[in-house]
């Protein structure tokens, strides 16, 4: 039984393939098209999924789209009817998209699949392709629960908006999932956070993690204002937004003039200076978001009585909020779908069809079913070597042990290393196969990486990858965090207590806050990735080797890309990125490339 899941036409389109209940391939379209958050039909992702498994489009038992287009269209019409006569501009844009394409999604999918199959549409239709549709939050819930390592669990999904729902609480047990509660549009935690992302001058549906990174530099001075004026928050985690402060229903912006008056000025222009007020606003919305996430998690616990919680939806990428839920102690176990955003909807849609439509069995073992999220394209050493030879690029081919030692020593000496191995990660995080690595013990690593390698804002923090069994020696983290989706405090004993007084905001950027300063954020938190040998053997071995060299089983792990570009997929892209930046070493499989620098 082969089931293809698709998410597309909003942002982060992706495809995922399940064979007899096992997830065998998943990839985001942006990695092929090099257009960040690409929303177009994931043709190349589908081709990859089929190619990886040796299947033809005709071999698919079902193609599952991750949301219900007519329900979404209904919500749009209701919105215009509620807001008219305002909203013509938005109506015109939306109707052109919907009447031209989105309303005829089944035909569109058929046409695209026929193209992939190399058939005429009429001939492809005769193969009776089964095209199914799940609801948006059902896809998220399925992506959170079915691949999780739990027999039963509470499931909480939170994002901008799907059809009507903006958040849901579900109960998963065996191969069944039941949605218990939904929060209806326009009251949305995702849209609330995105409104502040817009107000702070970052890109909507993209810059939310920058707000999270900026938050520790501020004070929560506006938290009460948000809670008192922008919303009514109930004890059960549900809330209602005061829509007068927002403009996302039919307007061209996220926030209204009333919102700007409340927070003391117009939205920050992108790339302009970040002031203390911006940092305070970021901290305030982060705090409010965490409070809402906590209340929702409590309600999920009350409704299900489960010990384990699964999370998905874009808001579940808020690792600080996830860390707060874990710290609360309501749930003993927490599992977050690594592609928690809309890309993961492709995985969820396929799983929902397998378990609910086809009544497929579900097995639970110690590990989750995401296989370290290493589900994308991979390349052999021979292929890479032939590329390097053809282009006259000097390299060294090393045995594994030699390679790990050379890389560890270079990292210890302060080199920044591009690390390209095996299958590409599915989801927004690089987890040790398309990563840029550096030494976390050096104070200057953060600014070097931000300004010379990633070309991004100086305040952005970096994440540590740590040997799973050594994580308790560095972080207050009671569970494993293989997908870098939990923030945890650095242990007190590792912190550096002495700080220069009188500094505030970004002036505190260069404080040495712990013995692993490059990955210790201003509030002593870190977005931890725990690494075990079952999920990524080679990355685990590298961390062990680095520990032998430096005494620290921790590395800085950031995604292999530069600002504004998706993570690299192929060795060619990795090499181009290596050339464009000030990385010192590039490792492609077992091949080591050093950057030749002109002598001073």
């Amino acid at each position, binding site marked *: 039984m082969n089931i293809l899941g698709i998410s597309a036409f909003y942002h982060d389109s992706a495809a995922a393939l399940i064979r007899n209940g096992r997830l065998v391939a998943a990839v985001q379209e942006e990695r092929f098209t090099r257009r960040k958050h690409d929303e177009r039909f994931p043709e190349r992702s589908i081709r990859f999924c089929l190619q990886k498994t040796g299947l033809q489009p005709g071999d698919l038992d079902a193609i*599952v789209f991750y949301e*219900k*287009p*007519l*329900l979404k269209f*209904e919500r749009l019409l*209701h*919105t*215009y*009817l*509620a807001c*008219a*006569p305002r909203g*013509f501009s938005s*109506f*015109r844009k939306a*109707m*052109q998209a919907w009447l031209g394409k989105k309303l005829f*999604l*089944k035909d569109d999918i058929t046409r695209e699949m026929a193209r992939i199959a190399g058939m005429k549409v009429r001939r492809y239709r005769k193969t009776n392709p089964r095209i*199914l*549709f*799940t609801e948006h939050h*059902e896809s998220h819930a399925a992506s959170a629960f079915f691949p999780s390592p739990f027999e039963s669990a509470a499931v909480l999904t939170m994002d901008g908006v799907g059809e009507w729902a903006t958040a*849901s*609480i579900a109960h998963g047990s065996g191969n*069944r*999932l*039941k*949605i*218990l*509660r*939904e*929060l*209806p*549009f*326009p*009251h949305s935690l995702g849209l609330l956070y995105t409104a502040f992302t817009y107000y702070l001058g970052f890109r909507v549906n993209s810059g939310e993690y920058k707000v999270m990174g900026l938050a520790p530099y501020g004070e929560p001075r506006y938290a009460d204002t948000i809670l008192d004026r922008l*919303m*009514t928050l*109930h004890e*059960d*985690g*549900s*809330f*209602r*937004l*005061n*829509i007068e402060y927002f403009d996302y*229903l039919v307007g061209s912006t996220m926030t209204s003039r009333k919102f700007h008056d409340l927070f003391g000025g117009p939205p920050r222009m992108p790339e302009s200076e970040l002031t203390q007020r911006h940092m305070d606003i970021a901290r305030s919305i982060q705090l409010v978001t965490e409070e809402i996430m906590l209340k929702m998690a409590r*309600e999920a616990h009350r409704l299900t009585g489960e010990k384990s919680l699964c999370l998905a939806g874009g808001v579940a990428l808020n690792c600080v909020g996830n860390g707060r839920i874990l710290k609360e102690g309501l749930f003993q176990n927490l599992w977050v779908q690594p592609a928690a955003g809309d890309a993961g909807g492709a995985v969820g849609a396929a799983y*929902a*069809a397998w378990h*609910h*439509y086809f*009544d497929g069995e579900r097995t639970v073992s110690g590990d989750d079913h995401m296989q370290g999220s290493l589900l994308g394209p991979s390349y052999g050493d021979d292929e890479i070597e032939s590329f390097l030879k053809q282009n006259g690029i000097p390299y060294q081919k090393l045995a594994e042990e030699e390679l790990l030692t050379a890389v560890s020593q270079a990292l210890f000496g302060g080199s920044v290393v591009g690390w390209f191995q095996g299958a590409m990660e599915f989801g927004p995080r690089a987890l040790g196969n398309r990563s840029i690595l550096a030494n976390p013990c050096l104070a200057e690593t953060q600014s070097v990486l931000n300004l010379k390698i990633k070309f991004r804002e100086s305040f952005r923090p970096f994440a540590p990858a740590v040997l799973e069994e050594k994580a308790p020696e560095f972080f207050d983290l009671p569970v494993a965090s293989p997908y870098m989706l939990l923030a945890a405090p650095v242990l007190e004993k590792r912190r550096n207590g002495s700080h220069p007084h009188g500094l505030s905001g970004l002036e505190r950027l260069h404080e040495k806050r712990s013995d692993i300063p490059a990955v210790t954020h201003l509030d002593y938190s870190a977005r931890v990735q725990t690494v075990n040998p079952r999920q990524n053997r080679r990355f685990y071995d590298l961390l062990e080797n680095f520990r032998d060299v430096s005494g620290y089983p921790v590395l800085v792990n950031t995604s292999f890309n530069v600002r504004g570009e998706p993570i690299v997929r192929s060795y060619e892209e990795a090499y181009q990125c290596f050339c464009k930046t000030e990385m010192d070493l590039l490792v492609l499989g077992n091949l080591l490339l050093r950057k030749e620098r002109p002598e001073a």
Partner: protein
Amino acid sequence: MKRLRAFLVLWKKMGQKAGEAFSAAVLFLAYFLCVCPWAFVTRLAGKKWIDFSPLHPGSGWLEKGDDMREKTRYERLF
């Protein structure tokens, strides 16, 4: 030949522009002659297309409990 090609490109562009203008005009009429009056009348009659009221008493959660094993729900677009 060059001139013909340039003319055809221009013709296509003009056609596209005309198409866009036509669809915008149709949507304009649809919005202001259908959506707006319908919204006005129904709202006057008390219909709440979307409940905006921020001070809603009680929980904001909607209770669900659909049978997700029902196969036809996956075959529908709604």
